[in-house]
């Protein structure tokens, strides 16, 4: 395919095509489908961190009004849980996924141990409370003790999360440095807390299974459930037209999907499982509690001589979720000597999982905070230090970047923010009782692309349908892909309907890792080109509608597959950005407010500036929450998140939202994909937390080496 024609709609701030459906309530989410005879499930969670179920008394529950069945390890079908030939990228590479009701073992507090199915949700919930469980407890391991950290397994290491990586000689680089920093940072366990709770409706029709699910990857749910139940993938259909936010929590196929299918099988009714807010904290994953040590060495001129970064992250005992936490140490800056060490700390907890900017945002927090400490130690401007160490190529792979406009990001953001007004010395800027701090950080998130397929159908009434099994968890995929199709077909946006979220549609990759637009968008563009070609081959002229009718056709369809090619071996691709923040700290009251934030981003070609800005301000607020509020309050005595609700697990609210300034620097990456775009999702949360932490230091002169930074950290002096 050639570069896209001069476009009319791409680049325009088109309003969300799914917006009216969402704000009028007609958009249907997983829990809102109502198949005939729908029954409701209530999941019973274990209340101990480790042990066995000694006795399970379901008699009271079974006799309660409306109750259809109580399912546990005592009566659940034995499921094969077949190993997949290759595990999907969203699943941990080693260990075993949690198996539903297959034995009496309890591996963490909150593990599903039974499910009640009833005619109504209320009846199911009431009966679930009446199930009596006696446990034999074993001594649990519930503390996050980095000393117990162990290297990741071989499979995990092969999957890009090695125990050790780097280049050159880290120790030597540190030894030769004129200036060094050696600092340790801690990041709290964080939960996604999307507005829509996870939910699945399972419906069997003979041996065919339909699942209405909250999912970022419907086709993977098919394969996963096929393996869990040992049935043919062709017998399973997964439907997920709308996802009310996910941030990575709906990448995997979680146990409740299996529970829904078991429950539906055993009752002969379609069954809905909707997790409560409290259950979400132990039923789907989370961003793991992570401790990092960063050692940096620099020559007198500020050139980095060494980056040593170690991370220890919590992990479940049954399954090994690991992150690319230490990748930024290898890719963000030019440095001859890099050494990273990654450790996993097993705990009796549910398994962590990707959360927006997985791994990268964690590693970048420590790296960018340490860079700020280095700038102070060297007495150089933090931006100047970063420019001095700009990575002209990806030094991890030795490949050139397919595009990189990071310097423009620094320059643009610094200019718009007014960085030049910053007085370098900490505690030197003040307004009334507030200390004022300016901080900044680099953002980086690798830009990937995966194979995808799409189908386009033109109709004789002048409309078109675009179909692919992608998801839109909220970033605006419905809209941006529609814009691409509109340009390719020369049709107005209103004439195009984009169908997604159904596993029977053409193949689409996981809706995660910021790859959807470049992957699915490229396939849609190709399918459009293919159908255009078919159209051109028809006789006659005029509009699409006229051409079809002239040929006696009511429709014309074409499909295409688009895949990344050799360029991935010759180039490294990444989105970049620079984030600048002003904070106000009132030390007397321990109050910290972010006053304003400026981000400049290199995300390649911007398909829809309005939606792109929304992505960025959402990411900025996610980063603000990460820096100042979000933390699971874990009680090791119970092995449990104690603030598992939205009143006490704090995320920023409107009143916390500062002035947010987002700019996209001119950029186009036609190496990564013909559209010239790069991913835009994860990048927006990257760098925000360290920029805030750095601003807090600038304001107060005190380093806070953990996030979130809260009033107890700031009060005093």
């Amino acid at each position: 395919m050639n570069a896209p024609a001069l476009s009319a709609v791409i680049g325009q701030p088109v309003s969300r095509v799914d917006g009216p459906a969402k704000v009028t309530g007609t958009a249907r989410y997983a829990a809102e489908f109502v198949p005939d005879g729908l029954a409701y499930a209530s999941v019973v969670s274990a209340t101990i961190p480790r042990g066995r179920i000694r006795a399970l008394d379901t008699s009271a529950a079974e006799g309660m009004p409306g109750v259809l069945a109580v399912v546990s390890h005592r009566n659940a079908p034995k499921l094969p849980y077949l190993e997949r030939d290759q595990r999907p990228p969203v699943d941990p590479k080693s260990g075993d996924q949690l198996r539903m009701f297959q034995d009496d073992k309890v591996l963490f507090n909150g593990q599903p141990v039974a499910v009640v199915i009833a005619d109504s949700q209320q009846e199911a919930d009431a009966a679930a409370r009446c199930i009596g469980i006696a446990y034999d407890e074993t001594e649990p391991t519930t503390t996050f003790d980095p000393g117990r950290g162990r290297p990741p397994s071989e499979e995990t290491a092969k999957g890009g999360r090695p125990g050790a990586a780097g280049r050159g000689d880290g120790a030597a680089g540190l030894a030769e440095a004129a200036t060094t920093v050696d600092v340790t940072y801690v990041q709290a366990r964080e939960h996604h807390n999307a507005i829509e709770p996870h939910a699945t409706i399972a419906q069997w029709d003979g041996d065919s299974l339909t699942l209405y699910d909250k999912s970022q990857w419907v086709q993977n749910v098919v394969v996963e459930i096929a393996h869990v139940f040992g049935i043919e993938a062709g017998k399973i259909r997964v439907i997920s037209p709308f996802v009310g936010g996910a941030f990575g929590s709906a990448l995997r196929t979680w146990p409740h999907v299996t529970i829904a299918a078991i429950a539906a099988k055993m009752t002969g009714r379609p069954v809905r499982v909707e997790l409560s807010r409290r259950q979400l904290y132990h039923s789907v994953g989370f961003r793991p509690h992570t401790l990092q040590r960063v050692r940096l060495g620099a020559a007198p001129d500020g050139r980095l001589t060494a980056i040593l970064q170690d991370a220890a992250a919590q992990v479940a005992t049954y399954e090994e979720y690991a992150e690319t936490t230490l990748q930024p140490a290898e890719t963000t800056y030019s440095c001859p000597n890099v050494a990273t060490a990654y450790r996993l700390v097993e705990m009796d907890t549910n398994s962590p999982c990707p959360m927006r900017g997985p791994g990268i945002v964690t590693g970048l927090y420590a790296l960018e905070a340490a860079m700020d400490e280095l700038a102070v130690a060297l007495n150089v401007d933090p931006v100047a230090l970063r420019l001095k160490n700009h990575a002209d190529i990806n030094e991890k792979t030795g490949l050139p970047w397919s595009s990189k406009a990071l310097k423009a990001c620094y320059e643009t953001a610094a200019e718009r923010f007014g960085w030049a007004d910053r007085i370098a010395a900490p505690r030197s800027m003040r307004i009334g009782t507030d200390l004022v701090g300016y901080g900044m950080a680099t953002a980086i998130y690798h830009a990937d692309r995966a194979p995808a397929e799409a189908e386009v159908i033109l109709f004789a009434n002048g409309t078109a349908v675009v179909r692919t099994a992608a998801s839109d968890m909220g970033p605006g995929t419905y809209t941006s892909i529609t814009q691409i199709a509109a340009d390719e077909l020369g049709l107005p946006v209103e004439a195009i309907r984009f169908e997604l979220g159904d596993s029977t549609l053409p193949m689409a990759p996981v809706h995660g890792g910021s790859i959807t637009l470049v992957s699915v968008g490229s396939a849609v563009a190709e399918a459009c080109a293919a159908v255009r070609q078919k159209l051109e081959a028809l006789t006659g002229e005029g509009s699409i509608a006229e051409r079809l009718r002239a040929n006696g056709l009511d429709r014309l369809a074409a499909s295409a597959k688009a895949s990344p090619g050799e360029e991935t071996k010759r180039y490294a691709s990444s989105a970049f950005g620079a984030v600048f923040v002003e904070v106000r700290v009132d030390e007397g009251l321990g109050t910290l407010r972010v006053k304003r934030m400026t981000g400049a981003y290199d995300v390649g070609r911007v398909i829809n500036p309005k939606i792109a800005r929304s992505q960025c301000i959402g990411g900025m607020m996610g980063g603000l929450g990460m820096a100042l509020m979000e933390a699971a309050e874990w009680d090791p005595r119970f092995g449990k998140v104690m603030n598992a609700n939205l009143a006490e697990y704090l995320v920023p609210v409107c009143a916390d939202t500062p002035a947010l300034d987002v700019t996209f620097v001119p950029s186009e990456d036609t190496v990564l994909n013909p559209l010239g775009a790069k991913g835009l999702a994860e990048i927006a949360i990257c760098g925000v937390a360290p920029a805030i932490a750095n601003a807090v230091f600038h304001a107060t002169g005190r380093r806070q080496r953990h996030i979130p930074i809260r009033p107890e950290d700031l009060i005093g002096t």
Partner: protein
Amino acid sequence: MRAFTYERLDGDSAARRRADTTDSAYVAGGTDLLQLMQEGIAAPRALLDVSRVGTDGVTAELDGIRIGAGTRLTDAIEDPTVAARLPLVAEALAASASPQVRNMATIGGNLLQRTRCLYFRDVTTPCNKREPGSGCPAQAGENRLNAILGGSAHCIATHASDLAVALVALDAEVIVERRNGERSIRLADFYRLPGDTPHRETHLEPGDLITAVFVPIAATGLSSRYLKLRDRASFEWSLVSAAVALKIDDGEVTAARVAAGGVGTVPWRLPMVEDRLLGRTIDVATLQLAAEAAAEGVDPRPGNAFKVPLLVNAVARALAAVADQELAR
């Protein structure tokens, strides 16, 4: 949630139908009770809705101001009498919850909301308040939100209401309808310290219906400040709050009313602070010395020790703000 019956009371039926069994409960806005029911913390079999029994509205009376128990928080905030004569109450309410919650929540319900202690709210853990005798994991657990004043070995749960803090500073009374008539209880005597019976939170008797709160005339029309500190800028209970109302005549403090929220197992009046103000001439040192008395008797835990300096500073800041208002008057 357990099955329950629902009955909406009006002015007449309220006199006959009483939530006077352990299985029944009044419901007003439902913003707290429904959470408790969903979580399995409360499981009444009968709900009696008192939101339409005619106890809403604010009236200025000769000897004080009466706010009906059924008044929605939003309506109380917007009421001109409250705004003009009880600015401390208006400010405390405006800093409570969110607009959506305030549109539903009532004055009476607010005073009886249950604690936000993480262990009280999670039925899988012990809690003496929820299950007497089961223990208090907050003592050595996640107690960042818990009390530094008024606690016992059995319970250190804070009282969560902001309104109650403002009202206790203003010597408010709670008007209660009992079967055999109406009575008024000083808010200062309304709540019980946890002691070894933390599950008993007030001096209400079964079936008691709160009809109003009453603020005596002497406590109205004062310059005041409700300073609320929390992790985020809105929609969160107090980590620490300071309620201050002062009258200063010719530079001398003639009325001082000071209370704190987020720190006590009950809304916490600070008489020691008041004593160090009354009759004194206002200056920076006096205010600071007075504020420091706020920390009298604190018993912090590792997770909430930060509340001690926060409390002193919040009181100092609120005192200074009100003193400025008064001196500018």
